[in-house]
């Protein structure tokens, strides 16, 4: 299709996509999905969180990983933006800092797929008394 200009064009595209989507049913239970939260506050936006979020949405789909990609606020690690919090099913959330598209690629390939830790983890699970 060349050029999407009207709502009718969008609807046509949606029908095409829906047909393909029905072949790959999404899991109903959100706990069984990988959750990716991209920090999107002032600090994140200014450091390029949008590109990182777009990358995760596109690449997770291309690599056929069922995941929910969403936004969150500032987690207080402004120095390390863009930051991303990843929750693998049944695991504690993990926060990665200084994420660009190259780092995001490593996170998908090594952490999400294999469960290996990659550089840039921000320890956040300290319990204070």
């Amino acid at each position, binding site marked *: 299709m060349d050029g999407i200009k009207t709502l009718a064009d969008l609807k046509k595209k*949606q029908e095409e996509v829906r047909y393909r989507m029905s072949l790959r049913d999404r899991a109903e239970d959100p706990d069984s999905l990988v959750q990716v939260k991209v920090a999107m506050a*002032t600090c994140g936006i200014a450091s390029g969180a*949008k590109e990182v979020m777009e990358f995760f949405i596109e690449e997770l789909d291309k690599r056929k990983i069922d995941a929910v990609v969403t*936004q969150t606020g500032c987690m207080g690690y402004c120095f390390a933006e863009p930051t991303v919090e990843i929750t693998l099913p049944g695991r504690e959330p993990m926060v990665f800092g200084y994420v660009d598209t190259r780092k995001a690629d490593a996170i998908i390939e090594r952490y999400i797929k294999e469960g290996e830790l990659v550089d840039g983890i921000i320890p956040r699970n300290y319990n204070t008394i």
Partner: protein
Amino acid sequence: MIDLAMHMMDIVQNSLRAGAGKIEIELLENSRDHTLQFRVKDDGSGMDGETVKKLGDPFFTTRTIRKVGLGVPFLKMTCEQAGGALSVFSEEGAGSVVEAVYRTDHPDCLPLGDIAGYLVLLLRANPEVHFRFTCRIDKAEFILDSDVLKEQQIELEHPQMLAAVKEYIRGNLREIYEKQPSRGFLCM
């Protein structure tokens, strides 16, 4: 913040945090008096007069996680640098309006940036919120309403639809900008 699209994402996050159910975003350009009005209106929790006064202060924030709040001060800075002004109207329980005016004939006026890219991310990440985006240049106008997309059963969940909606917004914005030959503002 190097473009208006980034400011848009940032200011809308404030509305979302205020629990807004409907958010209106407007970019209104007037070529006769060379102004660009960027406006975000929400029906969130609103603020009292004291809080509104403190908004321009970079060391004011409601967060406890850090001690600075730069979103609104940055917006104030960029529009004032471009010969414009920022105003905020708010009422507790009724919502807020943030309005930044830029002078488009000022060399420091911000470019639009990737409005389409940020808009689709906003719509996708907040499916329960009703967004209405209006871009108007003189008489040419483009409106994107998330309720209309829902009526047409457009699902942003799927990355391919995300790209399609982005293209739809971009194409329409480009069209109204092309009617305005004096300016090559739209960076995409």
